[in-house]
């Protein structure tokens, strides 16, 4: 994104007020955490819609109950730009993924657009997105070509990467890219405390306080795990295995929603084609 130099960019260093409020302790509004200990297996409502951008070949929008909003666009096979890259892609196409956070997406400090920290975070998320999607796309069908997906995180209300994975898979399918399966992402977190249980689809506040976090992606029809990314306080393998199972179960439960949205988009597209024809 080119920087607009005419725009007042504010002082070189600025800090969000929350940091100081938290330090004071008194001013902090108690986040109603103890009020309603939620069911750890409960999923937040998910809204998905495919095929909503007119210019992109495929697009999808996914919104989670807690306020996470991700918009994804997919661009069909294009000629691989540089000949050097074409050599690497001789066996099949390349999948290019981009993940961008809107500058105002997060709760705390605004990440300065173009700053090193922002770039790093986006690049890592983009790599995770690519690894989650690559097994799902039939890249062998697109020799010497590249497919591009870009995810834009409008608002981060927790479980952002998981939502982006689901949205990107929907966008690719909506673009008519041949795929083995959809990819469904699901996030989990474990609140601090020795006996805390893993919770599905944490909200932003829960995610921030969490002792450990995990994002999984599943190809539901093939029952293959395409992404596992997580970390935090150490716990024995059994606990992680249990978390993984819970996450995969969450993915299975989210799948029908995504599938319906894709079917609806396909019907709508065919109906539109029928009326114009």
């Amino acid at each position, binding site marked *: 994104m080119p920087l607009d130099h005419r725009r007042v960019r504010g002082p070189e260093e600025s*800090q969000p007020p929350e940091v100081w409020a938290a330090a004071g302790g008194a001013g902090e509004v108690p986040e109603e955490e103890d009020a309603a200990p939620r069911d750890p297996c409960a999923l937040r409502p998910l809204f998905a819609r495919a095929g909503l951008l007119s210019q992109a070949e495929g697009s999808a929008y996914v919104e989670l109950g807690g306020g996470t909003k991700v918009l994804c666009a997919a661009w069909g096979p294009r000629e691989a730009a540089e000949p050097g890259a074409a050599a690497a892609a001789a066996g099949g196409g390349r999948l290019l993924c981009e993940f961008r956070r809107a500058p105002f997406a997060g709760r705390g400090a605004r990440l300065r657009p173009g700053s090193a920290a922002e770039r790093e975070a986006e690049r890592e998320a983009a790599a995770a997105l690519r*690894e989650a999607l690559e*097994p*799902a796309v039939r890249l062998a069908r697109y020799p010497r070509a590249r497919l591009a997906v870009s995810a834009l995180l409008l608002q981060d209300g927790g479980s952002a990467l998981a939502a982006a994975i689901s949205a990107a898979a929907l966008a690719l399918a909506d673009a008519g890219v041949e795929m083995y399966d959809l990819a469904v992402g699901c996030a989990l977190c474990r609140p601090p405390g020795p006996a805390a249980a893993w919770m599905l689809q944490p909200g932003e506040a829960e995610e921030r306080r969490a002792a450990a976090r995990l994002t999984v992606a599943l190809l539901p029809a093939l029952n293959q795990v395409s992404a596992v990314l997580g970390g935090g306080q150490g716990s*024995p*393998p059994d606990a992680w295995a249990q978390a993984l199972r819970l996450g995969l179960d969450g993915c299975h439960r989210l799948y029908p929603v995504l599938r319906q949205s894709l079917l609806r988009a396909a019907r709508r597209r065919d109906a539109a084609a029928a009326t114009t024809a």
Partner: protein
Amino acid sequence: MASVVLSEAEKLYIVHGVQEDLRIDGRGCEDYRCAEVETDVVSNTSGSARVKLGHTDILVGVKAEMGTPKLEKPDEGYLEFFVDCSANATPEFEGRGGEELGTEIANTLYRVFSSESSIDLKSICINPREHCWVLYVDVLLLECGGNLFDAISIAVKAALFNTRIPKVRVLEDEEGSKEIELSDDPYDCIRLNVDDVPCIVTLSKIGYRHVVDATLQEEACSLASLLISVTSKGAITSMKKMGKGSLDPESIFEMMETGKRVGKSLHIALQKILDEEESLGTSRQKVGFLG
């Protein structure tokens, strides 16, 4: 990443061998290659280590500098990782070629060390909100021979074990202005407790089985691998799937068990070497890197 070209027949040979628990260099599926670890190899650092694992050669230097704590964590110091993929390792790293891999490794290290328990960051805070130690961990790849992540994590742990941070005192005068005084005695220093620093174990899926410490050839046969960081107590602190393939849920559970088992014995072996080297003190014969 550095890659080798294998024919289909060679791949089949490796895959079938792994199925029989016999790898091309004669190891079993859960065996590491012979590793060499040496600490205190670069004198201008606060701590350094070199690890050679098969043909993978890693040099890590830790430099401690004073900085201001991060806003969100005013009473903690922090670690910064930088991974340099120099063109010495493979020509593909020339120019900006290694940058992507470098950031990927650095991000993985951040995740591995993100857990509060791995290193006591409060111990490297000098006074809250004002001064803390920043440990710059610089990783150099001298040679790439497969299994970079494991070798790097071993080297980082060894370098942190070797790190000596000079003691400082904060003096406050009557007007409330603070002054920092560095101890004159070079032996008066803080050591880091690295008991809970995890090591990464990469499990590469080859055929229906998985192997640890894959060589370049084996990495070329593997579509997906699972990266697990394990502490010496056998707790897993982070996980990441790598590669363009996908994994069966059941095999992930198996991999985590293997990772825990292998990781524990790896920690024991590493700690033994580090303690041995420590006990030799200055009388130790130094080999130096690429020695």
